[in-house]
């Protein structure tokens, strides 16, 4: 279950680190980090991160909760898994970042305009409602999640691509793809959410 992380103002109060160890997927492995930097060095868009995984992990140890939960690091992970396979101490960096993102969204640290959050929500809506990701729909939803105006602009920017895809049959017109067992899926997901609220992932 997701409890809010404790308030940790003093440096090197272990409570936040312990919260991460216990509540973030793979967080327990984080204790083994030896700060070699291979993760941050391997990161495709690490330069666009405010801290990068290596430093972020040190900050977790240092109990810098606010800085960690609002960091751009977890939102710039491209899920390339380089850090995971290279980490000499087998820290599952990508998984940790992904779950940190999830938690910071869930606990409201991520700002409303966070592209990733908006995209994730559009994506999930499609998956949940139809059982499939309808790329066309998800993209549209996502674009307009920034409001009508920006939605149109974003759409326009990629219109050429879209038309091209339609022409090649890689984007279809008409009803979204959907599975037969939509009711079944809804029930399963609802139950899953309920269990998650009750007892967390593991």
């Amino acid at each position, binding site marked *: 279950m997701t409890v809010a992380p404790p308030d940790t103002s003093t440096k090197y109060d272990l409570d936040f680190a312990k919260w991460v160890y216990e509540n973030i*997927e793979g967080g327990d492995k984080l204790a083994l980090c030896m700060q070699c930097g291979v993760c941050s060095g391997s990161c*495709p*868009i690490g330069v666009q991160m405010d801290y990068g995984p290596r430093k972020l992990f040190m900050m977790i140890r240092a109990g810098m909760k606010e800085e960690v939960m609002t960091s751009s690091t977890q939102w*710039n992970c*491209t*899920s*390339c*898994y*380089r850090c*995971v*396979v*290279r980490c000499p101490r087998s820290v599952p960096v*990508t998984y940790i970042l*992904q*779950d940190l993102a*999830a938690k910071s*969204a869930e606990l409201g640290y991520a700002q409303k305009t966070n*592209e*990733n*959050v*908006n*995209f*994730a929500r*559009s*994506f*999930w*809506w499609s*998956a*949940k409602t139809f*059982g*499939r*990701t*309808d*790329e066309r729909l998800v*993209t549209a939803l*996502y674009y307009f999640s920034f409001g009508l105006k920006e939605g149109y602009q974003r759409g326009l920017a990629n219109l*050429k*691509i879209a038309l*091209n*895809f339609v022409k*090649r049959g*890689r*984007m*279809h017109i008409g009803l979204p*793809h959907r*599975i*037969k*067992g939509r009711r*079944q*899926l809804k*029930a*399963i*997901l609802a*139950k*899953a*959410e309920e*269990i*998650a609220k009750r007892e*967390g*992932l593991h």
Partner: protein
Amino acid sequence: MTDNTTDKKKFTYYPGCSSQGSARHLDESLRAIAPELGIELDELEDWNCCGASVGHIGGGQLPNVALTGRNLAHAQRQGRQDVVTGCAACYLNTHGGNEKIKADVNLRRKVNDALAAGDLSYDEDLRVRHMCEVIVNEVGVDKVKERVTKPLTGLKVAGYVGCQTVRPFANTDAGGEYDTYDDPAFLDDFTEALGAEPVPFQHKTACCGGSVAVMSPDRTLHLVKNILEEAKQAGADVISTPCPLCQTNVEMYQEQINEKFGTDYNIPVVFYSQLMAVAFGLDAKKDAALHRNTIAPEKLEELATGRGEAKPRGAEPASPAAIGRD
């Protein structure tokens, strides 16, 4: 595990959402080459989305795993044969989720509690595999070579593996230890087996930023550019990839990149399975689905329509011996 009574090795096939749209040509070409390689694809009944790389943010960790749970529950109903997918993201989530469920009794219980709400359960220990791993470990590159009737002679191919096809599972026991993470050989091996020429390509496993690009291309366009640049420098006629997101991402942004960086890229990006379809002498449109590429792979089209004995569809099936697992 796999069913050896028939003359083909049967797999439960999980196409994934992109097969309905951006990556139809992967799905079509895979279905076309499978029988040639002695693989029977039995589509997963009413399969759903795997959750991709953001499902856990939108829906939370457990519901995300539940998506995989439902697919596995359906697969189990279809038999105990291995599940195979051609999509990197689907493989990542489904294989990864499956292994987590197998390793963590607690998680398996929770997933099953959720599945119960849909009168489903997953209690098997199925194996979820990537098509490339199956071709390397089950079929064997030699077998691929045997099937070639139209060698792709003279075609220079940059083998772009991308990320999730090999990371983080390619070198693990559960992942079949079929190749390394940074400098895998399988894609170039495929290229060679088809009679084409793999060019040296250091961006082989560099990230194209696809998962971020969908939200904000500007953050990752330079990654695609680096990939295109090396392919161009290396004199590649086409880029070959196994990953749907990579294929789309590297292909569709070339115009925007040219605008942004003042370059003039126009490099076709195809799936290895399309190359195989052509080399196996199959139909350029119906089987190789070359018409679906937004940048037309002209050289490849020439090869497809050019000479080389055409082969009647569904000709002599592969002997089980040839694909027997050791």
